[in-house]
């Protein structure tokens, strides 16, 4: 087949306009809000510290207790997101700090938390953080896609953190093994951060 210059020009023009159309199409399909929901918590230090703390606490208690959080945590995020749009812009800083202090203390003390209490803690963290993430929603954001993204991020991060902790701190480790101490020291750090943050929030 012999290409005529006119046809080449036409093809080029279609391709050039086509790229613009493709981008517009992705935005129009509102895939952007899914990624916004998934990436938003990862850019927030409060989310990172609290989610990881929750995951580590669940991981140290063992896989049989921790695996309850796989459904509980994302559902909590969704509940929080729904509540957040009801209550509007309320600062969650003090609640965040309190949860950090509580989870950090439990980790540092190597407390054997019952499954129900663990689920309640994780659910509380998820609701608080879900509400805080919901406060950032704009009027043009697709709620459903944002919620899906947020729940996926929560599911992924909490499951990964728990799994890594279970692998790192084996159940056969003794009380004085360095792995146990490292996890407990991390808890001490998290509690200290929570305490500092609570005082700074109360003082400001």
């Amino acid at each position, binding site marked *: 087949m012999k290409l005529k210059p006119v046809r080449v020009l036409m093809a080029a023009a279609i391709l050039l306009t086509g790229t613009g159309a493709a981008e517009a199409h992705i935005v129009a399909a509102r895939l952007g809000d899914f990624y916004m929901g998934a990436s938003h918590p990862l850019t927030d*230090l409060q989310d990172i510290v609290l989610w990881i703390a929750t995951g580590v606490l669940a991981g140290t208690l063992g896989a049989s207790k921790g695996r309850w959080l796989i459904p509980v945590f994302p559902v909590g995020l969704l509940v929080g997101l729904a509540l957040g749009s009801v209550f509007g812009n309320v600062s969650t800083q003090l609640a965040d700090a309190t949860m950090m202090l509580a989870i950090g203390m439990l980790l*540092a003390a190597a407390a054997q938390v019952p499954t129900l209490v663990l689920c309640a803690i994780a659910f509380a963290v998820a609701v608080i953080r879900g509400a805080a993430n919901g406060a950032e929603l704009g009027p043009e954001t697709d709620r459903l896609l944002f919620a899906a993204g947020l729940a996926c991020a929560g599911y992924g991060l909490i499951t990964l953190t728990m799994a890594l902790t279970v692998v790192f701190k084996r159940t056969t480790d003794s009380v*004085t093994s360095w792995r146990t101490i490292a996890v407990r020291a991390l808890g*001490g750090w998290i509690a200290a951060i929570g*305490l500092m943050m*609570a005082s700074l929030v109360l*003082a400001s």
Partner: protein
Amino acid sequence: MAGGLVSGLLHPVTGIDHLIAMVAVGIWSAQLGAPAIWILPITFPLVMAVGGVLGVLHVPLPMPELMIAVSAVILGVAVAARLRLPFAAAVLVVAIFAIFHGHAHGAELPRAANALAYGVGFVTATGLLHLCGIGLGTLTRWPAGERVIQGLGAGIAGIGCYFLAQGLGAVA
């Protein structure tokens, strides 16, 4: 947020008196062995945060700068002399100093800083300084290393004395 993190991270490292005292705490706990070596990293940040709360709320402590210099002197001497206090006494000494160190961090907090980022930074920096001290402390397993550590302790006590003299106004 990044500003708060950086200032939190740098604050414990830029004050020489803080830095040497934190490293000395790590070395001393390594010398004392179990259980001090594993109680310290778990509880120290928490006790320091209590001091930090007092600092943020501007609860006055007696002569904070002097006490930090004194803590460097005493911890340095403890390392140099391989002082073996009973566990409870050692904990009490370290806890008192921890509150003073935390107080300084809290009181000197830059107003504009992000609270969480500053906390993360300063707790992490302090923890890493302890880890340095504990790492150095493992040298005590060898006789020659023991001498090095004792020399280090004497050096820390010396620098602490300088800060103490400065605090008292003897050195300009």
